[in-house]
């Protein structure tokens, strides 16, 4: 028994020595393999993510336009590329606008090395928009370079201070009527209820057409109503009350 035990130990030693020569092996690091993705992108505080509706009206532009471009932020996921790639959006269920009549979607080339990109959506000032609000529901389309990207929320970090939303569907209402813009939700408290007459008065007094918070800033949100109240008082002193399209007297809170 003793002899057998010694022999076993001895063979084990040989096996260990031999195995130790082959014990280490360089292993390749696993990397992501797959098609890169694309999704809509917005910061959470912009309130433009999947449940929101962006809006555009040709009536709100400084000059009369037959076409205009709305830029839609997209986020690319996967590996950065040192070559140009193409991205395309397509319409989804719920779209009432007509491609080629009210808007155009084209395959667009993304420059090398970018991971956030503004897709140019061409809007056309169609005849129907004078009396209708059309909705465009967009989603990323499969291309040779991209599939649908990662969805969900990207939490804020020390490097990226704002929480981000990556989402699949984007709703856009487009018209050439004076329709209440989606961003007016934020303006309600300081500017009061939307009306076409009020909007035109604001454009005339302040000289701008975009009153979204991104455009006017926090000081505009507080300061512009003061300017408008003063201007309205001057108007009323000269002309009497300013009535909106529904016969209601215009006021700024």
């Amino acid at each position, binding site marked *: 028994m003793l002899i057998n035990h010694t022999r076993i130990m001895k063979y084990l030693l040989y096996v260990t020595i031999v195995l130790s020569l082959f014990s280490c092996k360089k292993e390749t690091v696993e990397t992501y393999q797959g098609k890169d993705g694309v999704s809509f992108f917005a910061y959470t505080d912009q309130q433009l993510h999947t449940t929101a509706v962006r809006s555009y009206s040709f009536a709100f532009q400084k000059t009369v336009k037959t076409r205009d471009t709305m830029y839609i932020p997209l986020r690319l996921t996967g590996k950065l590329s040192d070559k140009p790639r193409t991205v395309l959006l397509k319409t989804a269920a719920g779209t009432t606008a007509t491609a080629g009549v009210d808007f155009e979607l084209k395959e667009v080339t993304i420059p090398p090395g970018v991971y956030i990109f503004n897709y140019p959506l061409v809007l056309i000032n169609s005849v129907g928009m004078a009396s209708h609000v059309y909705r465009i529901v967009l989603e990323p389309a499969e291309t040779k370079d991209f599939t649908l990207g990662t969805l969900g929320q990207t939490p804020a970090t020390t490097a990226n201070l704002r929480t981000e939303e990556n989402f699949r569907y984007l709703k856009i209402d487009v018209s050439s009527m004076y329709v209440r813009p989606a961003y007016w939700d934020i303006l309600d408290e300081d500017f009061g209820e939307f009306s076409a007459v009020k909007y035109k008065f604001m454009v005339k007094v302040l000289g701008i057409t975009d009153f979204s918070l991104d455009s006017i800033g926090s*000081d505009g949100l*507080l*300061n512009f109503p003061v300017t408008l109240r003063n201007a309205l008082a001057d108007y009323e002193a000269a002309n009497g009350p300013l009535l909106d399209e529904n016969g209601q007297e215009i006021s700024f*809170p």
Partner: protein
Amino acid sequence: MHLKHFFKLSPVFIVIVLAFAACKKDNQSLKYDQINDIKITDATTSFTVAQRDSLIITPTLSQTMPAGDSFTYSWKIDSNVISTSQNLRIKVTLSPGTYLMTYRVTSNRNGIYTLKRYTVTVTGIYPDGWYIVNNKDGKGKVSLIRTDDVFFDNPMEVANNKSYPGKALAVYNFGKGGFFYYFSDQNVYRFNMNDWLELGDKSSILPNLATPLPFKSAPAFILDASKFDQFIVADGSLYAGISGSTSENVKPFTQRIPGDYDLYPGVFPNTYDLTYFYDNAKMRFMRMAIFSRILEDAPKTTGSFDMANVGRKMIASDRGISTIFEEEIEWYFIMQDNNGRYLMSLTYDQFGSTLVGVNQQMVNSPEIGSATNFATSSILKQLYYTVDNRVYLYDMLANSARLIYTFPAGYVIKDIEMQRTTSKRLVIGVNNGAAGEVYYFDINAQGEFNNSTYAKKFTGFGEIVQIAPARKNL
């Protein structure tokens, strides 16, 4: 059998062979040279220097073998080399703050180096003190008496290498911010409080004015208690803007806040979200909530007086006590009607809500009807008022005043300010004709001036318009 023994003993052979292979005779001969041991033996390693002043450090180096050695020097803050001299002599251009500085001495003989770390605190060149707004030869300026009593005649012109035309009206700073406003009869400017570099003028500060500057009278400026709103009252009108504690947060002011009012030139932050104003036309308080731009009537109050219907004209104001973070502040007011002058106040309760305070006619107070300047104590129920060259101390509880100091004949007191952090020093600006002088009076436990005279005196100013603490606006 032999083979069996060989295999049995083979592990022993392997170990022995490996042991022989592992050891090798080392024939190197080690030589030991004495090196020059360098030490930096400074006892002082912390320095405080004002911006744009010179920072001079002459380190003491000790060496054990100085002969034949030479050195390379470097002084670094972060990764920036600021000097390569043995002694540091630089003009400090860093922003105010505390910096770690590393001094490195490297032997050119053998590359061995020694390090020393210093702490450098850079203060603003004009960190604290008293602003003296004065006019000389028809031109306004703001002089500064720094806390170390160093006097700067016209820092804004020196710092910006330009002239600021027009007569001075007023200067106001932020409670905890880094900058201040200077109002002249031609413009309004914002300056960095530390270095007095100009940050903007009326085009960026008040771009929305319906009527152009200048203001006809000295405006008042203050932040609200939250520090998120800022207000200017000028020529009876109110202007509001978003504020913050740094210049990056500050936004332009509004146009005149609409309404039928004529405000006393004062702003009274009382609670975290409510700031009061006083309408001298309708003789009532008004108020504005945080981030509101609606100037509304103050609600009716019961108690010592009705804020919605005071019925007196406001003559002067100053602050009383406050909570530790100044989110609630007490204010005293001098009011006037046909029967005389009154001391009134707004204060706050334990829940941070507004309360009306004292309301008493000021009696047994000589010349109170002619008083032009008022300053309250934040630790005693006392206030100081002046008439021409005379200073009176008014006791709120006793409701009486007494004369405590008289400047020489011909002197006229223009402004008085309490050093709010302690309420232990009253600063008085007087004019002797067109020549201004500033006096510091230290206050004893009874509220009187120590030794019945001033502690310090500064001369050489033009005609004084206003004095203001450099660091404390509220």
